[in-house]
């Protein structure tokens, strides 16, 4: 029987990372993935990643996927696609469906990296065509170039719900509302702000009570919920939609581990049924590892590090790596993982409420309730004691108000205007002593699209605002449109005075608008006359 030193199940971020490390140690490695395309969720993640350089921050998920595939190829990893693992049996035997045959393989070590499956919630009509998982929406738009629908309601304000809402608009769909039963936004505030300024209304403490339609979705009814998440009669609101998108969390897809006989535990903090593992992902069965979401829901950056750790541990298990090298390399990875596991969204912070940031600033309640910062928040975060901000000449304004692990803005500014420091969850700080040249690298490097360049002295009575723009059609210089506030409200006319596309910006267009100077700190988005972001017409109808 064909035997590999390592068989990896799942060619996502974690599985590929594991395979690469193991193969680089000299192991023969096969990766099986049931999908036609490798990369797992990476190829559906078209946003720029958070973290720092070592976590491949500011690089878009699908590009990280391309890099991983190239590295795997170079390291000699055999990746089998359309290869569905039917089961894992005794003696580390793996039965795989490849095309029209079932093939038996053996391995000396196995790493299960099957990822996660979407959770679902039920409501009247949830089985109607048009009710889909957020993952389904991502797959349709980002892998196959098809719109999931024209008018979409998103349920779930975690990072998946927020990111997919933005992606829906990028694909040309209209997002009519973002709904969550929780009383506050679950995901990163910067992700929420990105969609709020496009005009998407947030309905927190609301849930879907009915999907309407006979053969497919034609509308949706939401209701406010009480503290026990029970819908309150009389609070129903109706939206005409053709698609309802559910983003209500993920569960580890751990069935293979269970079948293989690993000790399993039910751990709500890790997302459900997960294997008992040591710090390198080794299960109760020696030589059988679990890496990535399958052993606890996190995000792709952590999954990649955990995959590398399991790959190295598997190499050490079979003597391809000596103990000292293993310890050294694992220690480095642990530091990298630790730096991601800090701040308000760290796995250990689940369920906690933060009143203040690490810097001692009261967090924005508006961001948590409506998805955008209000004027008082801006005052508090911009004019805070630890940063000096100019109000003349071009300078960055950073609207990053939560402690999340991310620091590319610091590296992006060659002038030293932006400081994050060693702890990457610290809020970026502006040092006005150094002069901004307006290069825009900070804007393009900010995965949360939370940096703007403002020049209050652009012209008498007018300010210029440079903002990140990732929609089509890209605005043209000289074009006239509408300036939108952080909540997506029209503020008045805006003229495009500059449009910059550079390779270094990586598909983020830097659009500079001219607005009356009093809007310098309120205008944060641009809406063309013939709208691209899919949100056209809606505001006119709604107001």
């Amino acid at each position, binding site marked *: 029987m064909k035997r590999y030193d390592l068989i990896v199940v799942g060619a996502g971020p974690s599985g590929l990372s594991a395979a690469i490390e193991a193969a680089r140690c000299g192991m023969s490695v096969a990766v099986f993935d049931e999908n036609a395309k490798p990369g797992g969720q990476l190829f559906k993640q078209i946003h720029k990643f958070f973290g720092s350089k070592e976590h491949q921050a500011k690089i878009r998920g699908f590009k990280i996927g391309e890099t991983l595939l190239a590295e795997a190829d170079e390291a000699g990893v055999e990746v089998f696609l359309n290869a569905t693992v039917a089961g894992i049996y005794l003696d580390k035997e793996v039965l795989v469906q490849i095309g029209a045959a079932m093939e038996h393989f053996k391995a000396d070590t196995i790493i299960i990296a099957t990822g996660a*499956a979407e959770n679902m919630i039920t409501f009247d009509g949830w089985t109607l*065509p048009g009710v889909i*998982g957020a993952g*389904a929406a991502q797959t*349709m738009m980002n892998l196959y170039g098809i719109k999931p629908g024209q008018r979409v309601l998103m349920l779930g304000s975690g990072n998946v719900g927020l990111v997919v809402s933005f992606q829906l608009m990028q694909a040309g769909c209209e997002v009519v509302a973002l709904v969550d039963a929780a009383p506050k936004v679950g995901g990163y505030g910067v992700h929420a702000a990105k969609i709020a300024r496009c005009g998407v209304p947030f309905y927190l403490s609301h849930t879907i009570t009915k999907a309407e339609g006979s053969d*497919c979705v034609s509308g949706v009814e939401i209701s406010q919920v009480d503290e026990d998440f029970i819908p309150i009669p009389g609070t129903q609101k109706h939206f005409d939609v053709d698609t309802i998108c559910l983003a209500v969390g993920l569960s580890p897809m751990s069935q293979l581990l269970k079948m293989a006989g690993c000790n399993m535990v039910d751990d709500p903090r890790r997302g459900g049924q997960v294997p008992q593992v040591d710090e390198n992902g080794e299960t109760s069965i020696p030589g059988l590892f679990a890496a990535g979401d399958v052993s606890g829901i996190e995000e792709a950056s952590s999954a990649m590090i955990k995959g590398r750790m399991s790959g190295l541990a598997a190499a050490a298990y079979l003597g391809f790596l000596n103990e000292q090298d293993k310890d050294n390399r694992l220690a480095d990875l642990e530091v990298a993982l630790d730096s991601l596991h800090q701040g308000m969204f760290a796995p250990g912070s689940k369920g906690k409420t933060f009143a203040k940031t690490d810097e001692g600033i009261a967090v924005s309640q508006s961001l948590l309730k409506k998805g955008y910062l209000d004027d008082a928040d801006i005052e508090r975060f911009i004019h805070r004691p630890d940063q000096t901000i100019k109000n003349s000449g071009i300078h960055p304004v950073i609207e990053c108000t939560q402690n999340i692990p991310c620091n590319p803005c610091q590296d992006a500014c060659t002038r030293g205007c932006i400081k994050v420091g060693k702890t990457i969850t610290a809020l970026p700080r502006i040092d006005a002593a150094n002069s901004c040249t307006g290069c825009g690298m900070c804007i393009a490097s900010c995965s949360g699209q939370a940096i703007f360049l403002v020049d209050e002295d652009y012209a008498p009575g007018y300010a210029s605002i440079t903002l990140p723009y990732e929609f089509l059609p*890209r605005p043209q210089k000289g074009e006239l449109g509408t300036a939108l506030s952080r909540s997506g409200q029209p503020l008045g006319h805006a003229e495009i005075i500059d449009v910059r596309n550079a390779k270094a910006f990586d*598909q983020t267009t830097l659009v500079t608008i001219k607005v009356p100077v009093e809007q310098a700190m309120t205008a944060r988005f641009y809406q063309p006359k013939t709208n691209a972001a899919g949100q056209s017409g809606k505001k006119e109808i709604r107001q």
Partner: protein
Amino acid sequence: MNRISEHPILGETEKGQLVTFFMDDKMMEGYAGEPIAVALKAAGLMVHRYTHKAHEPRGIFCAIGRCTDCVMIVDGVPNIRTCITPLVAGMKVQTQDGVTALEVNK
């Protein structure tokens, strides 16, 4: 109208050859190699099947081959997960009714 002609980040989607296939005896077009469900979605078709017990409509739900809601009869074989089954020129796709084909002429 459901196809994204150009995407701000991804540019143009790579597509296979434009082919024809049959959907309940109606001729349709799609790109070879894309999932059957994608070709149907592009044409605006939402209902893939009707359930056995309650005769309720179902369509795409997970789009990754897991939930089995999007199954249809493909070339005579029922319960084919259309979201992960590549489109081939000349394929015969039928709306599933329970575990058999829906009578479309009725």
